[in-house]
């Protein structure tokens, strides 16, 4: 009985020891020891998504996590690298995150595999001031031991946390100066004043944050033509959200701005002609401090480029009239996103003329008369310019030298363009002064080109007469030669 009992005890102890040894061997010895020494990273790591997926410390730091003895576990021969430094950090992450076999097959992850590649080609992939590593590593944004999914509220790259994460560097004047002293450091400050920033702060994760416009891993300089915030790409970037009716639902704003903008004079200049001088969304709304221009500030916004028009408008009687009726200044006549090229059709009192919206024949009579006269002058100037162009072209086709007249055509065009500016003074005297200058230039050019055409016909007639005289002379001479040679032969 005792022997049998002893055998049972022995078997139990053996099994127990074997189980304990197996358990010890299966346990992450790194965690065991570092927890024992109260390493704060352990607590963080236990919340980390990598821990949840079964990764051990050794997967990043190297070494043998099954060894109980510190020397064996942290032996360089076992691949221990300690805390990865510099580019080794991102390389460690990329070991799995760029490997389809690991990410897709083992973890069935839908994360893109090109993050490392994109990071390396981004503006953050440039060399740091030390010249030994790239500017940003994965951990710069995602942290190291407490990494959670992007949509986890505690993640530094969660939409509500991202502005502060980026600002860690981008609002640090000392740090930023070493890379690009011309880059502003008040983006976060401005962002907080924007509609996007305010909504973000109030907890709306849908509101645009840094990565919404600048992208996440593939961030490029705004001067880079491939950048999502390069002027010609910016309207499309904004429209990712603003043209998505379902996304914008609930914000109470239209979603056809991009569609309208693309048809506008600004949109065509920027998107079709690639004219970088043309405004993109941010030029009117601001970029980091993006907000719709207020009623009073529309003319100031437009006036940043259309300075003369804005100045004339501000000192015109319309300024007061518009303000008192709470009419947005430029926008009332020209529209906002779909601003078409301003033609003379807008002026006057006929069909399509914006003046007639307020100035009727029996209401606001003075303005009605001024608009009608201005339009009449503008039409006369266009007709005079067309006639001058046509005559100069005809004279040129006839081979006449009309270089000077051609040069003067610019004066007419200049005056015509200037009248379009002077319209904004709504002062007939100022407008007429410029129109008269253009008409006078047109008259000079028309006269010069007309003279050149007359001269062309005069030359042909002159040639005919001269040629006739020379021919008569030649024939007479021939007859004379024949006569004297006949006389010589007879003698």
């Amino acid at each position: 009985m005792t022997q049998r009992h002893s055998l049972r005890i022995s078997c139990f102890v053996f099994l127990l020891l074997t189980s304990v040894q197996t358990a010890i061997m299966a346990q992450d010895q790194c965690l065991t020891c570092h927890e024992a020494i109260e390493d704060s990273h352990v607590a963080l790591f236990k919340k980390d998504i990598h821990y949840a997926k079964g990764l051990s410390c050794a997967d990043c730091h190297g070494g043998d996590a099954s060894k109980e003895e510190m020397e064996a576990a942290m032996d360089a021969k076992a691949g221990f690298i300690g805390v990865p430094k510099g580019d080794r950090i991102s390389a460690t992450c990329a070991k799995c995150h760029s490997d389809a076999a690991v990410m897709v097959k083992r973890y069935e992850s839908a994360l893109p595999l090109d993050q490392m590649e994109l990071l390396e080609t981004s503006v953050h992939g440039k060399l740091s001031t030390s010249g030994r590593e790239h500017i940003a590593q994965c951990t710069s944004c995602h942290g190291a031991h407490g990494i959670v999914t992007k949509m986890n509220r505690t993640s530094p790259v969660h939409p509500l946390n991202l502005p502060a994460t980026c600002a860690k560097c981008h609002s640090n004047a000392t740090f930023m100066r070493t890379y690009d002293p011309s880059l502003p450091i008040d983006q976060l400050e401005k962002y907080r004043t924007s509609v996007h920033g305010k909504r973000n702060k109030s907890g709306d994760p849908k509101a645009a944050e840094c990565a919404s416009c600048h992208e996440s891993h593939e961030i490029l300089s705004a001067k880079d033509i491939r950048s999502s915030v390069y002027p010609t790409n910016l309207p499309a970037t904004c429209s990712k959200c603003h043209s998505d009716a379902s996304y914008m639902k609930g914000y109470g704003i239209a979603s056809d701005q991009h569609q309208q903008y693309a048809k506008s004079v600004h949109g065509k200049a920027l998107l079709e002609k690639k004219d970088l001088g043309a405004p993109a969304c941010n030029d009117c709304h601001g970029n980091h401090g993006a907000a719709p221009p207020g009623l009073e500030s529309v003319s100031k916004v437009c006036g940043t480029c259309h300075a003369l028009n804005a100045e004339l408008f501000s000192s015109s009687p319309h300024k007061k009239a518009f303000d008192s009726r709470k009419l947005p200044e430029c926008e009332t006549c020209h529209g906002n996103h779909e601003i078409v090229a301003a033609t003379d059709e807008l002026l006057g009192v006929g069909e399509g003329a914006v003046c007639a919206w307020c100035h009727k024949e029996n209401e606001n009579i003075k303005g009605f008369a001024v608009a009608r006269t201005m339009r009449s002058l503008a039409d006369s100037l266009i007709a005079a310019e067309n006639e001058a162009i046509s005559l100069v072209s005809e004279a040129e086709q006839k081979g006449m030298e009309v270089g000077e007249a051609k040069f003067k055509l610019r004066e007419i065009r200049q005056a015509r363009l200037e009248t379009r500016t002077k319209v904004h003074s709504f002062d007939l005297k100022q407008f007429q002064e410029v129109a008269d200058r253009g008409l006078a230039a047109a008259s000079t050019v028309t006269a010069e080109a007309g003279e050149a055409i007359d001269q062309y016909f005069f030359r042909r007639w002159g040639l005919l007469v001269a040629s006739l005289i020379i021919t008569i002379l030649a024939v007479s001479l021939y007859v004379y030669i024949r006569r004297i040679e006949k006389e010589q032969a007879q003698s």
Partner: protein
Amino acid sequence: MKNKLLTIYRWIDERVELRDLIEFMGKKYVPVHEHSVWYYFGGVSLFLFIIQVVTGILLLFYYKGSEELAFESIQFIMSKVEFGWLIRSIHSWAANLFILAAIIHMFSVYFTKAYRKPREITWLTGMAMLFLGMGFGFSGYLLPWNELAFFATKVGTDIAGVVPLIGKPIMILLRGGEDVTGATLSRMFGFHVAIFPGLFVVFLGIHLLLVQRQGMSEPIGFENSPANQKTMPFFPNFLLRDLLLWLLVLNVIAILAVLFPWELGVKADPFASAPSGIKPEWYFMFMFQSLKYIPAQVFFVDGEVLGILLFGLAGLIWTLVPFWDRKSAAGQQNRLVNYVGLFVVLYMILFTIIGWLA
């Protein structure tokens, strides 16, 4: 009226003995044969040169030879000055016709062997005038300071610059510096209106004096066939025929100048890139085109250098024909000279056409 003219004639005759000159001209005869027509090209060249001198002087009244004003002054001549357009157009057309007439005259002299003893100096002065005529063309081409002229001058002087040893100094001399600038324009203007005309008049004087002194050259064998030895008096017959041809040439120039006025183009911009289709004047075209066909390297010698040296050598041999064509000098037919001449004519025509079409 007739008495008054007679009085004036006598007054001059008393002092300079005009009667001797008239007697000399009256005794002067021009051979009449199947190639007599070529004699007239010398006169046509002279007439065209006179037109150039007259129209050139008229243009000088308004032309301003500076980088800033040259183009504008010609624009002014063509649009504001009374008949300025006509004068400028005649000057340009007559310049080209002058070169053409001089080339025809030169080849006619060559093929009829009129260069043979005792007319070697007449030939040499004629060749000198032909080269000077080309120089007139090259220097005058730049004067409007337009885009085509600017770049053609650049290319032309570049080609001159590749000649070993003397090329670079010649290029700098022509350009007035390393590049084609306003200094080049001033220099070309100086060549065109002062140096070349001065030299030309000297050669022309000698040439005409010798033609008058020695008379027209007769073809080889002409003196051996007394039956065919027809002549005509130089005065008035030949001179009047010359005059008749001059009138016809004048008519042609008038038609060309009015119906095809010489274009001014656009002002030269030294900082602009060269426009496509830069071509030299047509009389340089065969050389320009030939240089394009020579490989970059020929037996360790730069192709362009070789080409220029070959053309220089060919020009020298051609100019010295009176001294190596011994057979013609002895009154014998020299077929080799004819074949060489024929080859040169065909070569020039062919390469000019290729260059024009390229």
